[in-house]
């Protein structure tokens, strides 16, 4: 990565999350317009985040839930509260 791109790259997640002021966004967008490497960098990061979110669902076995509820029932049945 070019040294000139680094200062933008460091803030690219904040840019993606909409957490930057308008003037900084404009500077980043101006840089993106003329830098294909940074455009690819931004796009790949966005796709990584989307991919991780889409793959996030976990199948929790019903037994795990049953064991948890059993523990809670034991707790409620005790005098610990």
């Amino acid at each position, binding site marked *: 990565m070019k040294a000139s791109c680094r200062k933008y790259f460091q803030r690219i997640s904040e840019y993606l999350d909409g957490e930057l002021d308008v003037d900084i966004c404009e500077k980043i967008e101006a840089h993106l317009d003329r830098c294909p490497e940074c455009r690819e960098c931004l796009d*790949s*990061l966005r796709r990584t985040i989307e991919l991780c979110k889409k793959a996030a669902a976990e199948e929790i076995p019903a037994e795990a839930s049953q064991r*948890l509820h059993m523990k809670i029932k034991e*707790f409620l049945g005790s005098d610990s509260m």
Partner: protein
Amino acid sequence: MNDTASDTTDHQLIAAFKAGSMEALERIVKRYEKRILTFGLKMCGRLQDAEDIAQETFLSAFRYLESFREETKLRNWLFKIAANACIRKRRKKKCEPDQEIALDSLVQGDGPSGGYEIPDWSDDPSDRLLRAELKETIDAAIQALPHKYRLVFNLRDIEGFSTQETAEILRISAQSVKTRLHRARVFLREKISSHYKEGENR
């Protein structure tokens, strides 16, 4: 259910508990067990550990629910307890100290990076095998994240907490959340991309 409706339900359940309803506790568990178990699994990588985290979270929450003043949302409070349980569990296992992720080690050179291979997630149920393989790669990459980065990534990108909420849950600054999240994302991009590039070269 949107956030406001969800908060209202939480408020009603807490009020019911304070009025003596034990059933309200069961309903709180039902509302949040999947999210807490999933968080535990993503943090620890093992179902047994995720169950320990969930048990500790709910039992600890119920001990203090009577004095819970709702200055914070119930789900944020539960995740704060769960995150602390994850940190304690890691300490008990006497793991090595967290490695720092240095951006310079992930992004080097002055020339073109050679592109990133980030596959798309298929929503087609017939792609089950492909999805399972991809999920395994992503889960392994998340597990490879140093613990403090994994905490931030899971809370921000997977659980959808804001930067400020994540900062409050972990009791760190908003700037630390932003820095860790950015490094975690870059780390994951490199891991996933290099996995698929290696696959192409095999």
